[in-house]
């Protein structure tokens, strides 16, 4: 996701590549397509303004295009490191506003400016990710929040932030919690992220995982999926988890539960998957051996002691998506994807077929907000449950049909 844009002809060829990726994703997203057909026909989306703050990749683009086809005015935003430039360019050519700084050099300020631009489109509905847009609005544009009819959010971090805003009385709008859906928990968190995180690390480094000591920090669903995929490919997995019940689960799953401090000295590859700020400290890093490979699979750089790395080690780029930090002692640490969530920043994210089901739920949530906006959250959640069942049944039916 690191091409730079310059002149128009280059833009066109990049857009064509993005369009190829979008078409490929569309061909593997039947659940979203089915729901989209119905909602487009209903006219519910006409003239609605929808802001999508998911990573800009082919799968998010498929949702954006479906909404636009239904007559919605769609704007997209993502931080630069989670933006596939080719897809962004293709979306722009199809009339969708993409407020994302797609320069490789984009710093936080640019992302913030582009996020402001999305808010200025005054969305009726926000498809948020880690509550980034809602938090920004609450801080700088409270009047935009009063205009928003509903927010959908699939990440745990985001739900936490939104609940806090609601509690403080800063947010009085409907929040559809997709994080707690079974399709998200069991399939995306549990399988999709695990597969794509482990594979992205291997793609970027060209290393072998069989026989390596892997440390997974955090044994929530994402950590569990990463540990399972690493172990499937032959890694020896240590798990650091502060919740004793989850740590015990890691033991029962065949991994070794340790504290981060205990596990650091033997770790050859580290995945952080806690979703908590400063999961790793300077002390942990100091205990890690020379050549350790560090990846974030949770909420990116906030999990890592970036200031410590930047201030105490000399930084060199050694290959695409791999930065070497050399400490005064001569010890090296290899940071993957600049500390951003590795499967999205250095790969294409979760597998298409899994994201298909989540995007179908996103679309269903938007429909629920528009048609039953005043309903209580608990009612919306039970409606979502039956939609999940329908998606799963449809999946099972189609695989049964094939095997006849």
């Amino acid at each position: 996701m690191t091409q730079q844009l310059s002149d128009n002809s280059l833009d066109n060829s990049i857009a064509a590549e993005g369009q190829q990726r979008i078409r490929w994703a569309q061909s593997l997203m039947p659940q979203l397509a089915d729901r989209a057909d119905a909602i487009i026909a209903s006219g519910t989306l006409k003239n609605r303004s929808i802001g999508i703050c998911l990573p800009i990749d082919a799968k998010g683009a498929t949702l954006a295009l479906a909404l636009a086809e239904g007559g919605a005015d769609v704007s997209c935003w993502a931080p630069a490191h989670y933006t596939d430039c080719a897809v962004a360019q293709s979306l722009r050519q199809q009339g969708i506003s993409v407020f994302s700084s797609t320069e490789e050099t984009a710093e936080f300020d640019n992302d913030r400016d582009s996020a402001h631009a999305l808010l200025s489109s005054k969305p009726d509905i926000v498809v948020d990710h880690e509550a980034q847009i809602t938090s920004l609005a609450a801080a700088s544009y409270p009047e935009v929040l009063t205009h928003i009819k509903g927010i959908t959010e699939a990440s745990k971090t985001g739900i936490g932030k939104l609940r806090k805003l609601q509690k403080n009385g800063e947010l009085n709008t409907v929040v559809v919690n997709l994080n707690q859906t079974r399709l998200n928990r069991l399939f995306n968190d549990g399988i999709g992220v695990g597969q794509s995180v482990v594979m992205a690390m291997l793609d970027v480094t060209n290393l072998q995982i069989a026989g390596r000591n892997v440390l997974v920090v955090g044994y929530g669903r994402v950590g569990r999926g990463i540990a399972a995929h690493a172990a499937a490919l032959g890694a020896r997995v240590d798990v650091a988890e502060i919740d004793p019940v989850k740590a015990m689960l890691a033991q029962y799953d065949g991994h070794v539960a340790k504290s981060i401090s205990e596990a650091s000295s033997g770790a050859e590859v580290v995945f952080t998957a806690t979703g908590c700020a400063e999961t790793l400290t300077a002390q942990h890093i100091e205990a890690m051996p020379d050549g350790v490979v560090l990846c974030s699979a949770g909420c990116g750089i906030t999990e890592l002691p970036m200031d410590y790395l930047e201030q105490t080690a000399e930084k060199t780029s050694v290959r695409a998506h791999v930065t070497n930090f050399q400490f005064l002692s001569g010890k090296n640490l290899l940071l993957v994807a600049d500390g951003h969530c590795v499967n999205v920043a250095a790969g294409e994210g979760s597998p298409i077929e899994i994201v298909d089901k989540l995007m179908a739920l996103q679309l269903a949530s938007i429909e629920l907000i528009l048609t039953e906006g005043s309903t209580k959250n608990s009612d919306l959640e039970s409606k979502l449950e039956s939609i999940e069942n329908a998606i799963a049944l449809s999946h099972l039916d189609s695989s049964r049909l094939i095997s006849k």
Partner: protein
Amino acid sequence: MVELGHNSTSHLTLVNEGIDRINWVDRYSPVLNGLVRKSVNDGTLKGVRIAVVVHLEAKTAFLASILADAGAEVIVAGSNPLTTNGSVVEALRNRGMTVVAEPDGNMQSWEQELLAAADLQPEYVIDDGAELTMRIGMYRPELFKKLKGVSEETTTGTARLYAMKDAGLLPFPALTANDARCKHLFDNRYGTGQTTLQAVLRLTNKRVAGIQLAVIGYGYVGRGIAEYAKKMGAQVHIVETDPVRALEAHFDGMIVGKSIDAVHDASIVVTATGGMRAIGKPEFDVLPHDVVLANAGHHDLEVDVATLAEMADSISEKRSQITTYHLGDRDINVLSGGALVNIAGGSGHPIEIMDLTFAVQGLGAHHLVNTPMEPGVHILPKHIDDSIAEAKLHSLGIFPDNPRPEQEDDFREWLKGMA
């Protein structure tokens, strides 16, 4: 291809990228840097002309560099026109090595490159698929007579060398690196297994969990792919014509059956026979819509793309490295044109695996140079094979036990009694 001036910035960038890639390999190659360097630097390779004809990317370049550091005159060529990395080629040229390979080639340009490599009159060949060896035999018979030895990388090439020997057409000793345990137990199984899945998933952004995945061929390569896919949640179907291996697959928990049944519901089909046309018309007739076909074997022809093209109403490029053949209402997607998907569509084997494989090759070439051997096909002596595994274990800080005398079977006592 764009001609680059040798002092241009873009050429320098290319050279530096190649050097970075080779340095990255250097970091993760304890056996090549330790045991192999020590052995080959004994002066016996000085001035010896060795052709290295293996997929030309950073790991191969590192092997070639080690041989060159030991004083060998190294000639480098690629074993497949689609797998040559341009930056690596330029980095090797930059250090003065003879490279007869260009990136983005085709079968014709590759043939010419191999003949050019032959004409540089190598004494020894480190070969892959016996591609150079066979061509020297076919097109340069007088050079073939002068060839002193060949060390071969793959299952396919090993079979070819045995066939040449059986036909009385092998006038020099050949070592089958593939038969060394430090090669096939690791490279074929773990290396190809991991990176084939990686490449398929990277090219398609698809999932493994819950899909039906068919593997054609249950040798070491097929087994590695099948094992990993199964552990990641796929239902794995195996097609294998060797009854013992087919039974083994069954005992490993795979679904074993006929190819048309195995591919009938598959989302992903991977060929790994090392032979030709592992899947062809009978399978194409029954493949489901949107299936993905990938090849993990030596030949670009395991997926019979020529026949598929004849059967197709139209062909399109759906996405980078995905060619789609439209057959009626079905789309059949072939990855990387049917070439080895982990190399053509990925970064090839993991570095640590190639550290073992190229240790076998490097020490094999050294052994050929230093040991008089009869013409024919030979296996790397066990003590050399063992020394590689030991070096790798030691680099990991692992020092296994030696057997104690009392642990030996008591057959000696029996023999005494029987005498």
